[in-house]
């Protein structure tokens, strides 16, 4: 691995071509407001910067270099053309406070994306402003609260969340001031209806569901769940992380959901960027429209403009300083335009085909599917509990060993209720050949575990570092470099 950039630092050096010359050093700012030490930024040349970070980049796995079957994350191809067009100067240099007459290009894209998202979700209103799925959830749950409050229904203090849910669901509910009630899952991966009936009631503000769930199966009782919750006066939140599985096939609005978010960085193929940025637009049914977060783009005649709290007094408010991750919204818009209607359906079709194919191959090779009787959605779970017991290798070991085979590992140990699980999502943009090679790698690794288990347990062996000590990292916090 590369040294820290601070080790390349040398007093008095900088990337000269980047720095304005001829700056008078005297200033009228009172000296007690001025800084008189230097922050620890590296002092390096432009070539050093380019070389250092180019080299760092090469220590990453990415979609551009590896198959990345990370369940729940939808690591599909991020079209280069979209990236290039989003970087046009007219978009990049556009100030968020430019006058609307100087913003029609961007606004028209945002407006049309709102319309497209309404169409594919079966919802009535959309706000693009949330900056990731979790913020979309926040907006959604806040709208649920606002809805009940608007009806002077102040007793609803609980949000129901299935135990398979992603961590953001309970965390969001809590951040919105709700109590979280967990609902167990039945054997086939559906929400346990009896348990649901037991907890639902006048305190229920709503339920948060992912469908297909993070267990990789379609929630078959969705209509019944909807009627149970609705009858109790609660609302249904749809966590759109898995929208890729059903794009153009079935719509949350038609399933009975009242509000949802869409992860643009998943279903709409905007790059994950090593952790972000993302986009988490919210879509709502008629009754929640008044509460949507601001701003929203509206259109009058041929002109686009911003709707704000003035026109929408019941809004839950703003969620970002400007209007959210505009550049991501632009990219998602372009992706939607490249796919078109047919293309969207095909996303679901081929994501599902790939998942079911890989599952079938792995099952045939002796792996245990967590929900063997179910169709996989766009992802599926295998559990290594048998391998863990018989061979003393864990899902972690297998995941790490996959890296040596030049495959990114699937999501591991999530959802929490399946032991030693790997959640595998191949996405529609991977070819059959890649899936075959991946299945072969998994089969090989189990063989290795039988013959040379240490090879697996101490993997990876071929990357820039060997297996890292996370416990030490958490115990002896070393979060910033300090010069000696």
């Amino acid at each position, binding site marked *: 691995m590369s040294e*820290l950039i601070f080790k390349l630092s040398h007093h008095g050096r900088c990337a000269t071509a980047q720095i304005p010359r001829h700056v008078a050093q005297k200033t009228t700012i009172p000296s007690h407001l001025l800084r008189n030490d230097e922050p620890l930024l590296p002092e390096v040349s432009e070539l050093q910067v380019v070389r250092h970070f180019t080299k760092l980049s090469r220590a990453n796995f990415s979609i551009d270099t590896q198959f990345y079957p990370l369940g729940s994350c939808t690591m599909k191809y991020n079209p280069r053309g979209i990236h290039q067009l989003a970087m046009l100067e007219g978009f990049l240099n556009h100030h968020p406070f*430019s006058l609307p007459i100087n913003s029609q290009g961007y606004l028209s894209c945002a407006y049309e994306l709102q319309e497209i998202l309404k169409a594919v979700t079966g919802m009535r209103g959309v706000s693009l402003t949330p900056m990731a799925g979790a913020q979309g959830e926040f907006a959604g749950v806040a709208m649920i609260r606002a809805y009940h409050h608007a009806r002077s229904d102040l007793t609803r203090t609980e949000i129901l969340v299935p135990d398979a849910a992603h961590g953001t669901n309970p965390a969001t509910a809590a951040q919105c001031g709700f109590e979280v009630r967990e609902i167990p899952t039945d054997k086939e991966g559906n929400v346990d209806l009896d348990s649901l009936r037991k907890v639902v009631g006048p305190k229920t503000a709503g339920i948060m569901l992912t469908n297909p769930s993070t267990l990789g199966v379609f929630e078959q009782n969705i209509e019944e769940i909807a009627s149970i919750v609705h009858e109790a006066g609660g609302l249904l939140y749809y966590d759109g992380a898995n929208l890729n599985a059903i794009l153009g096939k079935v719509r949350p609005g038609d399933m009975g959901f009242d509000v949802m978010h869409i992860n643009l960085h998943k279903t709409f193929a905007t790059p994950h960027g090593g952790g972000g940025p993302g986009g988490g637009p919210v879509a709502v049914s008629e009754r929640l429209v008044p509460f949507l977060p601001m701003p929203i783009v509206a259109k009058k005649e041929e002109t686009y403009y911003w709707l704000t709290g003035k026109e929408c007094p019941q809004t839950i408010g703003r969620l*970002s300083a400007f209007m959210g991750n505009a550049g991501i919204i632009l990219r998602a818009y372009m992706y939607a335009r490249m796919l078109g209607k047919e293309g969207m359906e095909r996303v679901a079709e081929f994501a599902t085909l790939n998942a079911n194919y890989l599952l079938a191959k792995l099952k045939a090779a002796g792996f245990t599917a967590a929900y063997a009787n179910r169709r996989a959605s766009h992802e599926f779970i295998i559990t290594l509990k048998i391998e863990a017991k018989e061979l003393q290798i864990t899902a972690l070991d297998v995941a790490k060993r996959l890296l040596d085979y030049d495959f990114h590992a699937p999501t591991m140990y999530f959802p929490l209720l399946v032991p030693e699980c790997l959640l595998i999502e191949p996405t529609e943009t991977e070819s059959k050949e890649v899936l075959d090679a991946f299945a072969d790698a998994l089969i090989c690794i189990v063989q290795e575990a039988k013959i040379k288990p240490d090879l697996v347990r101490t993997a990876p062996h071929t990357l820039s570092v060997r297996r890292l000590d996370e416990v030490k990292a958490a115990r002896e916090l070393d979060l910033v470099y300090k010069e000696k």
Partner: protein
Amino acid sequence: MPFIPHSANDIKEMLATIDVTSIEQLFEEIPAHLRVKNMPAIPESLTEMELGRLMRSRAEQDSGLLCFIGAGAYEHHIPAAVWHIAGRGEFMTAYTPYQAEASQGTLQLLYEYQTMMASLMALDISNASMYDGATALAEAILMAVRLNRKNKSNRILLPSCVHPFYREVVKTIVTQQGIELVDVPFDEKTGRLSIETLEKMTHEEIAALVIPQPNFLGMLEEVDTLTDWVHAKKALAIAVVNPMAMALLKAPGQWGHAGADIACGEGQPLGVPLSSGGPYYGFLCCKKELARQLPGRVVGRTVDLEGKQGFVLTMQAREQHIRRAKATSNICTNQGLLVAASTIYMSLMGPHGLRQIALISHQNAELLQKKLTAIKGVELVFEGPYFHEFVIRVPRSVEFVLHQLAKSKMQGGFDLSKAYPHLGECLLVCVTETKTAEDIDKFVTALASVLSCEDHSRDKTEKTEHVRTYL
């Protein structure tokens, strides 16, 4: 089928392996009556070439104006190397570095970022990013309230000289948890906070005071005094700052006797393009004692099996995927790629370069301010030092002025008349190192000519009626 690699033959083989006869069959568990029959009009697909045509014409519509708007988003020169490298597939198309061994590039970069940002703030630690400056402030406030469990106060002093949209965002987020936000007005003469006003607001206990530097009006606060004051009240000092300015101005950790406890703000000035308002990223730093209450991802340095240095996500026990409902925040996807850009940017600039840019932006602002206030009828609204933004009052409607300036390809600033109606027709004007002396003169000439134009009566009717601005 854009981006789908399956040949007809592949599909056949795959279906056979699954033992179904059609792709349709894979969706059989979805109740048939729920299936979309006829999806409403979504346009036909476009090839990359067709899309290029469309988007070029859209981008064209919004471009070509000289920008003197700041108000929380700043135009700075971004070296080409920044995005050439941040845009490499390995950074751009990677996920969150959960598989540390396969993500050392992103992880080491984030560790380097944390070091740079913490040092820029003169604080001990930094997280790996929040969504933006506004949400970073909201999270800082939530943090402060959690930390203040002792005195149980959940009152936060949130001055009105903090960015109005930050205040709106904070309100949306923190009031869900019953936190009380107390508005602190600024001094009408200086455009800054005064201790007298603050004292008046503190009949009840408070959890924290938010201190902006520079504040939304561009003015520099007396940060030492404010920090010491809030500490004397046994409450926390939360700094919300422009990170670019911190190469020149005293940094939060250096304020007063003990330093601010938490610093946050918008990372955009450091290498992130304006881009219609996002994606940007929020930074969040604090003293090390507060580490366990910090929200968001944090990278730590550790060693591998062989004792070699390596990097991992750490303190994950705070996060939603482990702690679920008890997490410090629900944030998951953050703004990683922008942080990558900023880290490259800060590395190119170094402490010297960053300071030069802050300084020249400040000097350009002084130059512009002098020239603008020399125009008849234009007045500087506040007295005292500012960074690279300042407020002027104009003798006509700001909205009219801005629309007229736009005709000469000029974006004249941020209209304060709606966010701060009591100030009258005021304009917040910003200038950075990107503007030359000629640009500045052009702007001055344009404004002078707009103001000298006779017909006052048409100010109102000139506005396009339904085209509203942000506020």
